[in-house]
């Protein structure tokens, strides 16, 4: 259980991902969560928030700047910004794989920080999965369009019905051990090269 709540600062230029992480932190009982998308003026924000933990995505090129500022903002106590517990290589690796790194003030106990990091990692993974599914759906749509165009070309040039055109594409794909969308793409490309403006 959380005894006194920790101030958590989430820095992520990706607003959707940041809000997913924020929601997770709130669900986990962390009330004092601040999300920042833009690092301009971040020094003042760090001074105001005095975060105990900063969660930042690894792709942020301002990581060096933030790391330095975080150390400077705590300069009075000369803390060391930490990734996660030095001994826990596996959790570091998981965090880095997930693209999340966390800076934690020295003296803050590992067991209090680990749930935050774990949550950020799992939220990050959820976001990556979402992004991947979106990408797959998009490419699915793309290949369907290509197949439609290829069918159109076959129907026009060989006088086939739509069903026959599709069967021919599928048979060719099977014979060549390739995907239908690949065969369709080759056909569209070839038609583009050979014919005058071959359109559906």
């Amino acid at each position, binding site marked *: 259980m959380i005894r006194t709540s920790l101030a958590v600062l989430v820095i992520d230029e990706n607003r959707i991902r940041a809000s997913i992480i924020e929601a997770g932190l709130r669900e986990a009982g962390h009330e004092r969560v601040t999300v920042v998308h833009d690092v*301009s003026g971040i020094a003042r924000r760090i001074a105001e928030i005095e975060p105990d933990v900063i969660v930042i995505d*690894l*792709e*942020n*090129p*301002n*990581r*060096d*700047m933030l*790391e*330095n*500022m975080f150390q400077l903002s705590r300069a009075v106590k000369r803390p*060391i*910004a*930490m*990734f996660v517990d*030095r001994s826990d*290589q596996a959790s*570091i*690796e998981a965090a*880095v794989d997930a693209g999340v*790194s966390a*800076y934690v003030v020295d003296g803050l106990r590992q067991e209090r920080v680990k749930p935050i990091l774990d949550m950020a990692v799992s939220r990050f993974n959820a976001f990556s999965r979402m992004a991947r599914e979106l990408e797959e759906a998009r490419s699915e749509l793309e290949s369907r369009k290509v197949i439609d165009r290829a069918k159109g070309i076959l129907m026009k040039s060989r006088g086939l019905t739509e069903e026959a055109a599709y069967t021919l594409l599928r048979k060719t794909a099977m014979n060549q051990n390739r995907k239908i969308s690949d065969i369709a793409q080759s056909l569209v490309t070839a038609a583009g090269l050979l014919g005058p403006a071959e359109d559906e």
Partner: protein
Amino acid sequence: MGAEHQITAGFMPLFDSAVLVAAGELGFAAREGIDLILHRETSWANIRDRIAIGHFDLAHMLGPMPLACNLGLTPLASETIVPFSLGLGGNCVTVSNAVWESMAAHGAVSDLDPARAGAALGAFIRERAAAGREPLRFAVVHPHSGHNYELRYWLAACGVDPDLEIEIVIVPPPFMTDALAAGRIDGYCVGEPWNSAAVAAGTGHIVTVKALLWRNSPEKVIGARKAWAQEQPDALAALLRALHHSARWCQDAANRGELAALMAQPGFLGQKAAIEMPILTGHLQLGGGAQRTVEDFFLPFGKAANFPWKSHSLWFYTQMVRWGHVAHTPENLAIARDCYRPDLYRSALKPLGVALPGANAKVEGALKVATPVGSAGASLVLGPDGFFDGQIFDPDEIDAYIASQSHP
């Protein structure tokens, strides 16, 4: 098929990653039986942490960064060694046009002379302070960087206290030009092409260069995870040979066009090849139409540029002590001494019969003219290597050097 060794390496989009990039892209690594996988990174912190946890075997690194790792100044405890230096020189100090005008009013001229520019900047800084204005803000790329230490060295030698009289902030190299144009910083010290880029954009003026602050001074290195280097000594030695051939190719003036085109690709710098040429030719546009050619502006190979001199790491150590980054203790000194590994460089390159220095350290700043030195195999010419303020760094007199270098 199949390469004998697979090596994963990180790099930052800076021209001085060229020796590593060319080794991978132009076949030097493949010829040594290495499949070199290059990852472009977005921050030095990523590079450092990914080496520490084993994502990278080695990387393009800031010269003082492996020291910082070994001295416990970084979040993850990891031992990083330096078996190869990626080059000498290559950085500049650039200021905004407004700051340059004020410096010019105090006697600065476009000749890159560090003493003259530093005096003018100091006069301007004091004028601002007297008028109650905010201190100037300068950016460097990382606290544990050659940039931070050379900017501080320069200012301190010119009578400016970099801790009290200016503010030093961290900005990633590709953002320097924009930050300067937007007025968020007044000047910066960074490697190329991020100085010439500001001049080309008409937003900055180059006031001095690393090669004039300390001629033939160390810059980026290959930092390797010590545990990996111990497990894979053959892979490391093969890579050092590949880097040696790559560095020789990069230094050859006949290859400048091809090298600039390679680095201009979006996967590397993504900057126009023309913007990169100043680092290769030393012919710099300074801003306002002024230009200067700097001898030995950037050396990827010449003058023993790839030898990991212990005196280089020890000089970085003295500056870390000077600016309060680390305490000067016998233990820390020993760590700094052991970080750069000329022994590994020597044993890897010995079979090639190339010139190798006989010593592991040298007195920095002592060579006023180019000097042939005793070396194994072939002739080797070092220097000149003077600091602009005439100081000499003798690695055998560390205590005295540190004592002589308190804040100005």
